[in-house]
């Protein structure tokens, strides 16, 4: 509101009007009425002009909508599914997935043929020899070489470029180690974090736990409310400092760091040995050692800071890193067209990884113009990159298309790459992607014929349900719902002795988990609640998630109210007596309420359990689920590649996606054995055994297999070949208008 002082003058000035006055009392004065009419005519003219001005032109062969704008077109940095969908048309990896063949086999793309696989010295099939086709060209006409691939993969493995899909290359020998090494090298460049880690981070974690425990002893707190102390991960932080110091060895001429190193080693041992019982006694000893170590590092830091942190040093550190990459990571250019990849361990699905966008090459010369050391070389040895290398006119691509136009949050136009080796077989020469956030608007544009293909309507929306309903009644034929390799499931809290509500956790008993799972009628959920053609799930790994893998559905849990009650009684809860109140936890915007309400009613009716619902926004939901702050939580998983490993590694005790907090040494063992197994059939058998254990114990209750939801007129859009990997080859799609 404006801050103004109103000063009143007694009489407002009145304009003097010449001539004799005459008071008009007409209800409709003609003057202003005329003006209003004129205004109206003006409006009509403007609106009419807007209506007739410029029509919408179909400026591409294939037009489709994307729900969100693009974060990256850089193949090594992108991760969002719509970024992948677009970048796949610009950059072509060695292999791609042949989507019009049964089993979706990988086929050669930039490579001339599938790679030759040979054994290493230990007899493991881990060496892949790729040959790049002679006619593979960049959009500027230059040859695609094996060096382009190595350059691109090195980018993905440099933490400098914050590549989220970096880990998809970690199957390559030495790749993971290189990533972590470079990260340590970067932190070591300026080890100012030492004091924080030693005196704040680790110390506070210990102190909080110790204080909490003393309050528990005094009866002021419950054990469940005290933050747990993860001694192993705290010790890791200290170990991290130690390895940072190693990078300084060449500069530590006076051996100043030796005492700090020794103190850190002692600290690491000390922290590793911490238990609730000795925690309070060790606090003081920790503080003394940590202060000493931090002081030494600080002094060293101040002394050598000025002497060795210049752009030249940063460059030198970078060259050490590149050198290390060449020596330790299993990728080698035999010549310009031959590439040899050595894996860390046998990985039968590596060909699918090699077909993934992160493995695509980039054109070194055009990217390198936008890469440089961080401007402040006294503080950081990091390489940074200007994302503008992916702008139209600058970006050089090797896929079927080039980037013609990109307008942020508006649209992207791709046109044919004149140098693409398989140009002759392309069925269209341009693709227009329009960014439309609202599914309802996407549908309206599709109905008006503005869009040929709508791939982004979430199958959990009511729009999808209505369209699927019309499809089922035969009213339309343009809804496509291919199955996916994705599973929708409920996690049971398998970790904590107490539920967040303070009651003892009944789900620690596999019989209770099985009973709850048996009380879910999956068929009704799929048919009546969701209604978009999903399939009830009786295994965690969906069908088609790996050649030669037969999901053990016969061991899956089926709807069996009687059996559920019996099992629950066996576990000590006859007729639900003694069960704590159970809360179903799900994320709010995602269409999960329907299924949750249905399951709530079933558990109440079948098991006589008291069940409530709780929803949270995604970021909060995800955090709490990760820390097992729930009784039962909804989960969903879509496989990255067609192999059961991408599903089953969720149940490993060390997995960072093990939201159920499940820990079974037998599963870990079977999994480890499978990963060493060279014979594919035996490997699959081991994995199947692991899944059988998981299904018997039901740390999660699989509910359904997801479907994708696409909208396009099959009479108009040809050769789409939808498949369960949601893999696309847009260059082969033909639109008849």
């Amino acid at each position, binding site marked *: *509101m*404006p801050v*103004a002082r*109103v*000063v*009143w003058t007694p*009489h*407002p000035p*009145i304009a003097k*009007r010449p001539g*004799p*006055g*005459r*008071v*008009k*009392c007409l209800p409709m004065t003609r003057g*202003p009425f005329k003006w*209003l009419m004129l*205004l109206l005519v003006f409006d009509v003219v403007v*609106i009419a*002009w*807007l209506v007739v*001005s*410029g029509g*919408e032109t179909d400026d591409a062969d294939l037009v489709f909508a994307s729900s969100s*704008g693009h974060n*990256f077109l850089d193949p090594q*940095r992108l*991760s*969002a599914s719509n970024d992948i969908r677009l970048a796949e048309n610009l950059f072509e990896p060695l292999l791609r997935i042949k989507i019009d063949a049964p089993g979706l086999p990988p086929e050669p793309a930039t490579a001339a043929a599938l790679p030759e696989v040979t054994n290493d010295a230990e007899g493991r099939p881990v060496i892949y020899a790729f040959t790049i086709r002679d006619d593979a060209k960049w959009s500027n006409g230059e040859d695609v070489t094996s060096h382009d691939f190595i350059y691109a993969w090195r980018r993905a493995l440099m*933490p400098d470029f*914050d590549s989220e899909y970096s*880990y998809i290359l970690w199957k390559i020998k030495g790749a993971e180690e290189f*990533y972590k090494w470079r*990260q340590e090298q*970067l932190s070591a460049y300026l080890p100012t974090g030492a004091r*924080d880690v030693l005196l704040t981070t680790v110390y506070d974690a210990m102190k909080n736990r110790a204080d909490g425990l003393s309050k528990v002893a005094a009866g002021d707190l419950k054990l469940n409310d005290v933050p747990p102390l993860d001694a192993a991960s705290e010790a890791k932080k200290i170990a991290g400092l130690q390895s940072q110091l190693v990078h300084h060895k060449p500069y530590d001429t006076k051996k100043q760091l030796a005492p700090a190193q020794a103190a850190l080693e002692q600290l690491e041992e000390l922290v590793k040995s911490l238990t609730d019982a000795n925690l309070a006694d060790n606090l003081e000893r920790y503080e003394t050692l940590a202060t000493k170590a931090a002081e030494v590092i600080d002094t060293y830091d101040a002394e050598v800071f000025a002497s060795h942190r210049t752009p030249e040093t940063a460059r030198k550190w970078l060259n050490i890193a590149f050198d290390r990459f060449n020596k330790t990571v299993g990728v080698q250019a035999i010549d310009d067209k031959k590439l040899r990849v050595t894996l860390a361990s046998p990985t039968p699905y590596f060909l699918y990884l090699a077909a993934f966008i992160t493995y695509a090459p980039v054109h070194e010369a055009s990217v390198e113009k936008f890469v440089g050391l961080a401007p402040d070389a006294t503080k950081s040895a990091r390489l940074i990159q200007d*994302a503008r290398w*992916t702008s139209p006119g600058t970006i050089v691509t090797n896929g079927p298309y080039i980037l013609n136009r990109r307008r*942020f*949050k*508006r649209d992207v136009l791709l046109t044919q790459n004149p140098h693409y080796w398989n140009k002759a077989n392309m069925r269209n020469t341009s693709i227009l992607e329009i*960014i*439309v*956030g*609202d599914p*309802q*608007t996407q549908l*309206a*544009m599709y*109905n*008006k014929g503005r869009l040929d293909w709508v791939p982004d309507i979430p199958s959990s929306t009511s729009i999808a349900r209505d369209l699927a309903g019309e499809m089922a009644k035969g009213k339309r034929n343009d809804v496509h719902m291919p199955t996916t390799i994705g599973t929708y499931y409920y996690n049971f809290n398998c970790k904590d002795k107490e539920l967040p509500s303070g009651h003892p956790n009944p789900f620690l008993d596999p019989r209770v988990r099985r009973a709850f799972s048996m009380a879910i009628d999956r068929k009704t959920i799929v048919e009546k609640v969701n209604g978009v053609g999903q399939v009830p799930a009786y295994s965690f790994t969906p069908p088609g998630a790996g050649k030669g893998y037969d999901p053990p559905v016969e061991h899956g849990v089926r709807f069996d109210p009687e059996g559920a009650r019996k099992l629950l009684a066996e576990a000590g809860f006859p007729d639900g007596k003694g069960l704590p109140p159970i809360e179903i936890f799900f994320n709010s915007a995602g269409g999960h309420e329907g299924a949750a309400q249905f399951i709530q009613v079933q558990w109440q009716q079948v098991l006589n359990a008291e069940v409530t619902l709780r929803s949270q*926004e*995604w*970021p*909060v939901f995800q955090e709490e689920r990760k820390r097992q702050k729930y009784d039962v939580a909804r989960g969903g*998983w879509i496989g*990255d590649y067609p192999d059961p490993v991408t599903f089953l590694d969720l149940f490993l005790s060390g997995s*960072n*996606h093990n939201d159920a907090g499940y820990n079974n040494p037998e599963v870990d063992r079977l999994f480890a054995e499978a990963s060493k197994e060279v014979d594919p059939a035996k490997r699959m058998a081991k994995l199947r055994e692991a899944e059988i254990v998981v299904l018997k114990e039901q740390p999660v209750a699989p509910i359904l297999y997801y479907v994708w939801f696409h909208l396009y007129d099959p009479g108009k859009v040809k050769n789409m070949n939808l498949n369960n990997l949601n893999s696309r080859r847009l260059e082969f799609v033909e639109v008849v208008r």
Partner: protein
Amino acid sequence: MASLIIRRLLQLPLILFVIFMITFLLAWSLPGDPLSRSEGKQPPIEVRMAMAKQYNLDSQPRFLKSYATELMKGSLGPSLTYRDQSVNDIIATGLPTSALLGAAALFIALHIGLAAGIAGALWPRSPLDFATLSVALVGVSLPIFVTGAILLALFAGIVNLFPVGGWGEPRHIFLPALTLSVIPAAYIARLIRLGLADVMSSDYIRTALAKGLSRSEALFRHALKVAFLPVLSFLGPAAAAALTGSFVVEKLFAIPGLGDHFVNAVLNKDQFLILGLVLTYATILVLFNLVVDVAYAYVDPRIELT
């Protein structure tokens, strides 16, 4: 007057600083991890730690320090959601779009609001007056997504006059601008109608009428200026809001504006984008209020600005 403007402009950095600090604290207290992905496989913890370090998200003092240095250079930092765009890029592409749409909406709102309000005041208790007041009441009451959906279904669906969504041609602007204008138009119409009714019954208008002015002359010449003052103070914040975009309208009509970011930046805990947007919005708001205050003095000379 000049001293007022200078003083206000000098206050601006202080206001921005306070707003910045509050936003900073709120943004950091948001739950969630901006570097985690919304669905599916999360990058390993090593990758996320490396990213947090790179963006100074692991230490608040370091973040503040680097943000301040960057701000001095005129940079609002990178966006954590659209990581190949800087916050400057996002604002530079979104703001003109939103501003154009907002200006069009304000123009329509003023146009409809003034016309309806004046017509109502000229012919009070006529069917025209009754009609405009009821339409205004409905306009204020309907949520914007309902208005937008109805307009979309009417003029892009049933009667195929306008495109469903998109941006770039003049015809794209009409439906979203109209949607955005409904609430301010209704508001302005009511302010003007009631203000005029008030002023028209005041003594000096009676004097003017007695002196022989026609009702419409008295209205346009004397009453309108005074009745316009409440509209003016409404316009300041309304203009700032309209120019920086609307989440609902931009989403419904697929417009590449700024409004969408205000909501999504918070949902994604994109600290850089949140701070950048809030700073931009606050600057615009303060400046518009200043403009409104200055305009006050011109419209009504009885008001002295000190």
